[in-house]
Structure formats: structure tokens, C-alpha cells
């Protein structure tokens, strides 16, 4: 670390500070700034030339005065100190304690911008995680090492669902629980408290690392926060052999912070003012989940994001969907009907489901049952539309059966209690209860053998 301080700041604008006449400074170097009141601010070099450097100041550039600003270059990238002691702790987006306890002391420090995983080092995620939520387990199964976001919107119970997943997630026939890394960006005090109490009451607090940036904290810290959290998760998973579940909320606030900084830097905007590199930037975060050959641990990532104006084509959910391995979409309509969890079935998807379910994993009929439920529900929704135009009385008997199915599916399969932990067996049996309201010939996605075994009419 260099002790030398420079007082050659030449410009400060929109969170960026220019310092001239400095010797060659490394790109990405961490910076400590002392302002005229003697307060310390943190920053990072985002452009370095032989004449001047541009520094992104995490706490912002408000109140800086060019005469009385001292800049020190630490000659190290942004790092996090790691030890098993991080479990049970709460940190800021810069890795500083937020729980009034001393900082982590460890010789192990890692740059939060890890080198990308070699695709040849990965193994394909295949182990089914039972979340106890039928709409996820039955229709959009999560597997260990997957990145599966929850697409939500303001006012929907995404936090409750995320908490339920954290509480219930486990491998069937295996009682070992996940270690949890919780990354909160721009959240309200109420939300932060909700999670904290949630973790405390379910007794997992000692197994959770929290990184918290409140809505009124500096937005620039939101850019380092998920990287801090994932570096911690990688340490837990690949150094300490733990299975880690990372919950991030809310990625929309992260992307907005990125836009704020990009605009200040003068980057060319692409869509809705977001910089063209939003995709790559999000990918750097999401792709840090997964499984690695010959490593015992894993990182499963459940980011939560709110779709601005419920719009799934907005750049943030859109680019996220292109990177993650599926998405769980919440529906305002179901929520307004009082159904919890209001999982919007049609646009929800899990891409890694196909290899983690079925014989040897869940049950042999699972892939077909899920497919059949999707197909019937899609048809049932069409019928419901039709009924709203011509009236249910005009429908044929066949169509009325679909209508009844839609209601029963939402009421019995989608709806469940916040503390209701359904096993995959229960979920599939429930599915067959619903499927059995159709005659066997209407079910073309399940096989004849499965029908004979599980269908209530043909099985008798």
C-alpha cells in the first residue's frame, strides 16, 4: 500500500473524480479519498492513463472540494477478506461490517472480480432440489448449481416466496441444509428486517452471510455488493465444500445503479438508457453459479428482480432471462385472487429441469406429468377467455371440463400455505388427482403405462 497522498484532483462530477499528475496507476486499483472534513471515501480506478486517472467514488462526489481532497492509491483491487467466520455476519457492499462487530481478520483476501470459470471445468447440474413449493418442484424444478430468478413486480410477495425457498430447500432424502448468502441491494428497512427475522426464526441465521445495501445507501456500492456476495459464496462452496444458496434482491436496483454510473461516465446508452454492456455485466454475476468438477460444493442462485411496470420485455428481466436457466414469474392476477404463491405458470420455465427429474431423481412420471399439466392449463386458459366472451353456458361439455380444471389447478395445485412443505411425491400425486378429471384419451403427453399406474379411472 502506498502511503503517498495526491492533492491533484482536477474534476468531480456525478460520482466520478479525475486526478491529474499521478504516476502510472493500475486499472481497477482501489482508492481511498479523504475529503475536507477528514471523512474517508472509497473508490476504484475506472480509467488510467499516463496523464490522469478517473476514479469512481462509491460514496459519491457531493461536497468534495478540489483544494482539500487527498487521494491515496492502495495498489490492490477491490477485495474481500474470507474466513469461516463470515457466516452469521452482516456486511456492506464494500465488505465492511454492518453488525457493529469487528471486521474479519484473515490472510485470505480475494479480488471480487474473479476470473471466469473455464466451461471445461464445469459439470452439468443435475441434483433436484425440493423446495416444497408445487409450482416450482412439479413444473419448474430447481437443481443444485442452477441460476433461477424470480421475476416479480412491486407489491407481489417475492420476498415471502424467496424466504420460503430458503427455509424449505433441501435434497429429497437428505437433511443437510444449504448455507445461505443473502445479497440485498437498495432494499427498504422493512424488507431487510423481514429477511433478518425470517432467518432468525427458522434458526438458520448462523448459516447465513448477509450483504446489505439499503435504499438510502450510496447506489455505487450496489455494483460491488453482488460481487462481494458471490466471492463469499465461492469461498463457502469451493473452499469449504458447502452447498450454497445465494438469494439476491433486487437486481433491478443493481441495474439502475449501473445505469446511473454509466450515464455519469458518458457511456453510449442502448435500451432505455441502460448501457450496452448490461448483458455482459449481469452475466458476470449470474454465471458465477454452478457446479465444478471434483468439487463437493455448489452455488445455486436465486436472484429476485422486479419488472418495472410489470413489463417482462423491459431490459432487466429480458437480459436476465437470456442468461439465467429459466425464470419463475409471479402474476398480479393470481395475487389479486388471493392465491399464494402467485406463480404465473405459462411464462415460467426451468431449463435444467429435464436432466434433474424423472426416474432415478424424482419419479418416472414427473417429466410427462409436468408437460401434461402445462398443455392442459394452456388450453384451459384459452377456454376461459372464450367463456368470458360467449359465456360459460355456451361451452361444450368438453370445454367446461377445461374450465373446471383451470379453477381446480389454481386452487389446489398453485395455492399452498407459506409453511406448507410438500414433498415431490405429494406434488405429483396432487397432479394426478387433477389429471384424473380427464378421460385417458384426452391425456396425450403421459404414457399409457403411467396412465395405468396413476390415473384414477384407468388404474382401477
Amino acid at each position: 500500500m502506498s502511503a503517498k497522498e495526491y492533492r491533484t484532483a482536477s474534476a468531480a462530477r456525478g460520482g466520478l473524480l479525475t486526478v491529474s499528475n499521478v504516476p502510472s496507476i493500475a486499472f481497477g486499483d482501489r482508492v481511498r479519498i479523504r475529503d475536507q472534513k477528514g471523512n474517508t471515501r472509497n473508490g476504484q480506478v475506472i480509467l488510467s492513463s499516463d496523464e490522469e486517472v478517473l476514479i469512481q467514488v462509491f460514496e459519491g462526489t457531493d461536497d468534495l472540494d478540489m483544494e482539500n481532497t487527498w487521494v491515496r492509491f492502495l495498489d490492490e483491487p477491490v477485495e474481500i477478506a474470507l474466513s469461516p467466520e463470515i457466516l452469521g455476519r452482516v456486511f456492506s457492499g464494500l465488505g465492511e461490517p454492518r453488525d457493529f462487530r469487528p471486521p474479519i481478520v484473515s490472510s485470505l483476501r480475494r479480488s471480487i472480480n474473479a476470473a471466469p470459470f473455464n466451461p471445461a471445468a464445469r459439470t452439468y447440474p443435475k441434483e433436484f432440489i425440493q423446495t416444497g413449493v408445487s409450482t416450482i418442484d412439479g413444473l419448474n424444478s430447481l437443481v443444485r448449481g442452477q441460476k433461477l430468478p424470480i421475476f416479480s413486480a412491486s407489491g407481489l410477495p417475492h420476498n415471502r416466496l424467496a424466504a420460503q425457498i430458503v427455509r424449505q430447500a433441501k435434497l429429497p432424502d437428505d437433511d443437510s441444509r444449504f448455507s445461505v448468502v443473502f445479497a440485498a441491494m437498495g432494499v427498504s428497512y422493512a424488507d431487510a428486517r423481514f429477511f433478518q427475522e425470517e432467518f432468525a426464526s427458522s434458526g438458520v441465521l448462523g448459516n447465513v452471510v448477509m450483504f446489505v445495501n439499503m435504499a438510502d445507501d450510496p447506489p455505487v456500492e450496489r455494483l460491488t455488493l453482488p460481487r462481494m456476495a458471490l466471492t463469499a459464496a465461492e469461498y463457502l462452496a469451493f473452499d469449504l465444500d458447502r452447498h450454497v444458496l445465494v438469494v439476491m434482491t433486487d437486481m433491478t436496483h443493481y441495474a439502475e445503479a449501473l445505469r446511473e454510473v454509466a450515464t455519469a461516465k458518458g457511456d453510449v446508452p442502448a435500451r432505455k438508457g441502460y448501457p450496452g454492456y448490461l448483458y455482459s455485466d449481469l452475466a458476470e454475476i449470474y454465471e458465477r453459479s454452478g457446479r465444478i468438477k471434483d468439487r463437493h460444493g455448489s452455488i445455486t442462485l436465486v436472484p429476485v428482480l422486479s419488472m418495472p411496470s410489470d413489463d417482462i420485455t423491459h431490459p432487466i428481466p429480458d437480459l436476465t432471462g437470456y442468461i439465467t436457466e429459466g425464470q419463475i414469474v409471479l402474476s398480479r392476477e393470481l395475487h389479486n385472487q388471493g392465491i399464494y404463491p402467485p406463480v404465473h405458470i405459462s411464462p415460467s420455465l426451468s431449463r435444467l429441469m429435464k436432466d434433474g427429474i424423472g426416474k432415478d431423481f424424482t419419479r418416472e412420471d414427473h417429466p410427462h406429468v409436468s408437460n401434461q399439466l402445462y398443455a392442459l392449463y394452456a388450453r384451459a386458459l384459452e377456454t376461459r377467455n372464450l367463456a368470458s366472451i360467449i359465456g360459460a353456458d355456451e361451452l361444450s361439455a368438453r370445454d367446461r371440463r377445461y374450465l373446471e380444471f383451470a379453477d381446480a389447478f389454481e386452487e389446489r395445485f398453485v395455492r399452498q400455505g407459506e409453511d406448507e412443505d410438500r414433498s415431490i411425491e405429494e406434488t405429483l400425486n396432487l397432479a394426478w388427482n387433477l389429471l384424473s378429471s380427464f378421460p385417458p384419451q384426452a391425456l396425450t403427453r403421459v404414457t399409457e403405462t403411467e396412465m395405468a399406474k396413476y390415473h384414477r379411472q384407468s388404474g382401477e
Partner: protein
Amino acid sequence: MINKESRKGTILEINGPIVTIRLPGVHNGEQVRIGSLGLYGEVIALEGDKAIVQIYESTEMVRPGEPVEGLGHPLSVELGPGLIGGIFDGVQRPLEEMFLKAGDQIPRGLSPDPLDREKLWRFVPTENLEPNMPIIGGARIGTVQETETVEHRIMVPPDIEGELIELAPEGDYNLEETIGQVRDRHGHVHHLKLFHRWPVRKPRPYQSRDNGIDPLITGQRILDTFFPLLKGSKCAVPGPFGAGKTVVQHQVARWANADIVIYVGCGERGNELVDVLDSFPKLKDPYTGRPLMDRTLLIANTSNMPVVAREASIYVGITIAEYYRDQGFDVVMLADSTSRWAEALREVSGRLGQMPVEEGYPAYLASRLAAFYERAGRVETMDCGKGSVTLIGAVSPPGGDFSEPVTSHTKEIIQTFWALSKELADARHYPAIDWVDSFSADVGTAAEWWHENIDRGWEKRRGQALAMLARDAELSRIVNLVGPEALSSAQRWVLEGATLIKEGVLQQSALDPVDTFSSPEKQFMLLDLILTVYDEGAALIELGVPVQELSEMPVLARLRRCKELYDSSQIDQLKAFREEALQDFKAIHSEYAQRGEQTA
């Protein structure tokens, strides 16, 4: 063109992946190594005595004043035996070897040779080649059995021509050993090896371009039967996320009747490449019975890997594709996704401060896209053989909006368009290829092949099916307004027929072991069978048979399952089923005909 001497310089400025250097005598496009880590990069602009370089790796903790070395050649790939079965990054670094050498994460500045230098290959020289014979670039001087299915042809590099001085006898050689010598007209002697280098941004030469003749058979019914793609043609697969682009690309990579498949994962998910790496060695090529990995090569620049190497990755892929084309192979290259490549262009141009035109993309987006797709084609090679590169590019339009720049520019260039639809995917209709938005400009040419090899009725049947689907869309609109009761019996039978086509032909499960691949014979049989059943039913409706009775015939439920009940070798069983189905219709027919007589 390749200048061997290296020159030294210094770094002036670092702005993310864009670095300004001072390096006297550097060329535009030249490869450089910068900093004490020796990061690789490429000069993309010259300004006075400064050069602007895009770096393929992260520049974290690199500082101004560090040294720079010019390597004297543009970004090139190594072409020779050992490519097939491998996985390389966007600048052809061998990822398996990097994993063994450096562990889970990709370290910076490491760059092992793409091809194994130690491995011995059995070289068999071409017969009738004698010393002192004139020889041209691209001429075949021998072969190496690269995998069980690929006989790799060793060629004189395209930029060398002259007199053959010496050719090695049959034997085992490694890549570094000289297997022949050619004296060019300046008297310079070139030592030929089993491999050579070629700059990726320069298309490899050929004698002439040919028209495509044969369709690429992918075993996917909606692709082969409805929107055929010719070998040597170019195709785009646009679709919003979750519509199944990747599955379509994987299915083509698995089942296409190509000699070589090059899969470029450009800015996509790491796990998708792992899926290919895991599953392809276990899957059998339906044409040769050998593991699919014996003909497949992967280029991986996943979304979290450096953006600049992503831009390079599709050029690396297409150059390797051209190299196998020059050997006389039919090559399929899949680029997933060209949108990510375009975004890499956008990112670099943005950092250079170039004027954006549409959605931040630079003005040269359209011309770069066109030039890239034009590298596909069926050609007469330098040594008078035939080879082809078929190019299939996935497009990821933001918000699924096909009017965005990358999709719309791509659409102007390509021949075949497989449009994926969110609505179909949401209803779990897979592959979710929309029959209204998709098109193929090559139906006429493909029809010749189908008529000659499968059935004379192909084009007609295809037309009938599409017409029925169009009619179905029209009638469904009426139903949605006023309910099904408004339709006549014949119209309701059309809806039933269209459903049969959708479920029995168009929907195809990539996960079902039987349904995943359909031979052309089976594809036509299924289509013809369903249309025949429809025609029979339509005739019965004329006789007054109620639609209800037809819809509930057990034979229809079975018809929907034919695709998964009979595999491509069970054409005879399919024929038998057809007879059975026709009998059922006959029975109803005679019943009603009798009734008709009685009432008369």
C-alpha cells in the same frame, strides 16, 4: 503478410478492454501482448503514433507504462488434425488443457498451443504426387485419420504455390515435423507441416461458388418438411428467451446429416456447453453410428468471458468451418448467439466513442453481419472438390421484438428463417417454431430432392398442410368471437385436422428417444397419413357423419402418438397402421352409406 519480428512499445491508457499503446510500426489488425502478464489483444485503430487495442482478457491491475509487444501477425487460428472433439475459447485456446494446467478459472496471459504438438498422426501421402510437380495452394498432399469418422485431408496452405520438392513417405508424424517442401516462384522454400495458420478475418479462397442442391436433413419435421435449409445456405433462428433456441440448435448439431459440426457458444451460458460436452460423446451419429463428438468441435466464449474474445469467436469458428469445407466436407456451423456478437461490436464501438445509429449499435453492424453470413456457401474447392459451410445463427432479440436491428439486418441476408414464438413455447408446443413467421427461400430446390428420394407428392402435401394451418388460424378467430357453434361441420373438421398436424407432425420432443429424430421417409409418412385421414374424414362429413363421432374415433388418439410409437426404421409398421386407420373410416363409410340407402 506474416511478419516474424516482434517490436516493443508501452501502454499509454487503459479503459476497460480498450487500451491505447505506443508501438512504432504496428499494423492495424496486428496481434499484441501487453503488460507484464502478456495479455493478448488486437489493434483495431491507429491514430498518429498511437494504436488502440482491444484486449481479449480482463485488464484489471494493468498500468500505464507497462511494456507492449507486437507479434507481427493478425489474429490467426491453427488448422490441422486434433481440432475435432475439442473445446476452444473465442481465440482458440484449448480449454481442456487450460483446465488441466490452470484449474477451475481461466487465468490471464496463459496461451497454450491450440493443437497438441506431441501427438503422432499417421500421415498417408496422396498417390501420384512426385517431386518437381507443380502444386497449387489447397492441393491435397495426404490424409490423416483424425477421428473414426473424419479423414482429415492435409492440404498445401492456400497462400503457397509452386513446385513440390519433397513429400514425406507414409508414417507417424507430429505437427511440428516437415512432411513436404514447396519452392515458390521466388525460389523460397516452404516447409509444409500437418497444420498451418490462417488469419480469421480473411475468408479462405476457393475456385467458384455453387448453388446449393441438397437439403440439410436435421430429422426435425418442422424444419425439414416445412422450412428446408440447403447445405451451404444460411439461416437465422430468432426467438425471445425461453422459446427454445438452444434446443433447436442442439438438435441440429445432433442430428444433421453433416460431416462436421462446429458449435460456437458466443456469449451464452456455460452450462449449455457442458451439456454438449457431456451428452455428445454418449450419443450416436444416426448416419455413422459413431459418437457424435467424433464430428463435433466446440468454440466457447460464455457470457461471463471477456467481451472482446466474444467478437473474435465467430470468426474463429467460421475459419475452421472453411478449412474443413476446403477438404471437401459438408460443414454445419451453429452460432449461438449472433446477437451477443453484435453486442460485443457495440461495446467496443461505444468505448471508441463512435457514433451510434440504432439502439447504440455502430453504423457498420449491417455490413459486418452480411460479410460474416456470406462466408457460408457451397463451393468448388481449390483442388476441384465440393464442400459446403451451412451457417445457422441464433438471434436473441431484446423483448422478442423482431424489428430490432440485429434481427432485421440478419433477415435481409439469410435464406431460411426459423422464427421461434413465445406463445407456442408457453403452451409447451415444441419446437416453438412459428409456421406463419418462418420462411424458406429454398423450398423449390428442396422439393426436387424430396421428389426424387422420398415421394413425388411432397410439395403438394406440404402446401396442403400449410393451407390447413392458415385456415385453422382464420377459423379460430371466429371461434374466439362467437364460439364453436358458429362453425359448420366441415369447418370444425378443419380445426380437428389442424390439431392433428400440430400434435402429430409439428410438435416433436427432443427428450423422447424415438421422437427426437425423424428420417425424411418417416416425416413424409406421418404428414401423408394425417392428411389422408383428414381427407377421409372430410368425405364422411359430406355424407352427414357428425364431427363428434369422428373426433372420438380411437384411431385419432393413436395417430397423434405415431411419432413416438414408430421409429424411423419402422416404416412398414407405419404403413400397416395406415391401412388399419383407413379400414376404420371405411367401416363408418359403409355404415352411413347403408343408412343413406335405407332412408332413400
